């Protein structure tokens, strides 16, 4: 089936002439689509004349890029040093339990939440820390997780 990529044309034209624009372009496309699908990467490759393998290499090198569809809300669990020594594992367990995810799964079946681990959110003084979309929550206890997630769940209805 022929897919329609015209939504990307504007972004591609903005970045086309700039040097080193591949990463910002992929960031912008991901912002729009939520993730980078294979046909999209192929389309960008055709449009920019950069080999698909090279684009794929860039997309897989950086942890910010996702090649699978993701949930509406991104939950970032900090696994930095300060959080690690302040029971980040307990927070992670509480999150996975609340979302009903098994170890290794990252996105809830209803596509509401995707959980990712990050190295440090830069709010180490409030460890342990998570970030939901662009809101940061600190000084967490496992029992606080449910309340935080509910705020985002409610926003949907």
């Amino acid at each position, binding site marked *: 089936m022929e897919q329609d990529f015209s939504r990307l044309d504007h972004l591609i034209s903005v970045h086309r002439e700039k*040097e*080193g*624009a*591949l*990463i*910002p372009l*992929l*960031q912008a496309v991901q912002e729009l689509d939520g993730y980078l699908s294979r046909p999209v990467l192929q389309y960008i490759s055709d449009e920019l004349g950069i080999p698909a393998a090279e684009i794929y*290499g*860039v997309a897989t*090198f*950086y*942890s*910010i*890029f996702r090649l699978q569809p993701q949930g509406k809300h991104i939950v*970032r669990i*900090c*696994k*930095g*040093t*300060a*959080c*690690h*020594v*302040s029971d980040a594992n307990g927070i992670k367990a509480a999150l996975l339990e609340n979302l009903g995810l098994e170890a290794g799964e990252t996105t809830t079946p209803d596509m509401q939440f995707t959980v990712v681990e*990050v*190295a*440090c*959110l*830069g*709010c*180490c*003084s*409030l*460890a342990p*820390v998570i*970030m939901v979309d*662009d*809101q*940061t*929550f*600190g*000084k967490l206890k496992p029992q606080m997780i449910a309340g935080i997630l509910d705020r985002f769940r409610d926003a949907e209805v």
Partner: protein
Amino acid sequence: MEQMIVKVGLASCGLAAGAEDVYLKLREYLGENPGAFRLAETACNGMCFEEPVVELCGLDLGKVTLGRVNPENILPLVQEYKSGKLPSSNIILAERHPAVRNELMANQKRIVLQNCGIIDPLSIGDYEERGGYAALRKALKLSPQAIIDEIQNSGLRGRGGAGFSTGLKWALCAASKSDKKYVICNADEGDPGAFMDRSMLEGDPHKVLEGMIIGAYAMGSDEGYIYCRAEYPLAIKHLNAAIKAAQERNYLGNNILGTGFSFKLHIKEGAGAFVCGEETALIHSIEGKRGMPTIRPPFPAERGLWDKPTNINNVETWANIAWIIQNGAKAFRQMGTQRSPGTKVFALAGMIAGSGLIEIPMGMTLGDIIYKVGGGMKTDKPFKALQIGGPSGGCVPADLLDTIVDYDSITATGAIMGSGGMVVMDTGTCMVDVARYFLNFTQNESCGKCTFCRIGTRRMLEILTRITEGRGVPEDLDKLEDLAKNIIKGSLCGLGQSAPNPVLTTLKYFRDEYLAHINDKRCPAGVCTVLLRFEINPDKCIGCTACARACPVNCISGYVKKPHLIDQSQCIQCGQCYKVCKFDAITKG
């Protein structure tokens, strides 16, 4: 008439602690009582552990800083101040009165952080009022060589980790002949547990810009990049605003302040790869490629971004430049030590009471940082180790706390100065687990180019995991040391060369703990779950059955109101019973 000012700290740390609700409450009040005070915004004064922080000033009482405020208590405190009374609680700092945290602040020396938590980072006027861009005006009247000489004489060393002489680096780049040169600010800040750059960029972005503009003028560059990690959305927002404001005032752009010198600045968002903090990898990343380090030479000063001469400095390095130009190399050298002049910003985190951002003169001891600036330990558990320098650094034990902060003394302990992350650990932290944690990090972040870094770190991680799971053998320690040596030798960039440091320092200072895991199958800190043994103390157990109900493998038995028993052969060490017991009847060890 005196105008009272209420300033709310709205940096990431403040927002995470609920500062926005406090701000909204104040704004609502101001709507109902117009002119009651002026409501202002600032970033973080470094005392993140007291967030949300609000400063009151403008009246005879002098500046008073409140900590841990919330929407409920803020208005009464503000009203007390307004009526000429010292607020009755929550005071952490006060200019003219005693206050709990005054001493912690007084023991610092703030030049890089001089504006953080004081000015509104979105207001270029605030920055100028405190002397901002005066150094640039002064620099533009000097010759480029005079600026480079001044920086070289100051003895400033790169704050990004390696401690290379900034003046020398600038001189090399200035000497490279080219039609085009770049300057870059490294704000990738990948070390977990470090947040100096975030706080500085959020709190005083113009200071970094001013340093970069001066540097570009001195080295003959007309274009620059700030490479900032994407996890710092607020820092990026403030940088964008600062660049725009600086352009409007012609500190950036064409023909800056009528001198004929032009400079434009872009922001590049990082995409989540620790190795991109390494300068050659960072350059490839800006070029839109995979961020793989390449062999130096050629150094970026000869051939860097798009093969043009390029100078990269860390955020904090750039933030020192304006001060040095303004106050002179001699004044700078009056702070710190002979070989490491000036100050250093550190991010204190972990089990320390005063976690946050501090700036101290080089030469202070690590112990003084923890106890006189950081306020000591957070809980009553005693100090065990200070982790300095993140995944490239090491763990310094208690008996080395008289080590002074300078590049060479810290390196002598086996750790490194690094960019400024300090994580304090107490006796509840297992050092083998910490070593495993860091190896897991470096192993994940290795770009995969060098075999030893790619596979050697993986082998080390496997051994460490084995030890924490009680399957270690005595030969493992020699193997770890052997692998460490080879990884250091066989890696091209600093990531691999420093990856073994956390293991080597813990082996050096906490060898007993490794041996306890290997020989006695015991984790003295009670962290490595597989090695834990949970037991019920029959004298304390009242038979409430909470543990038996929580146990996922049903290995706890006993009658109601009678002491229970754990069947050790079935126990999976999940710790659920320990968590649910309300009577402290379960011991772990």
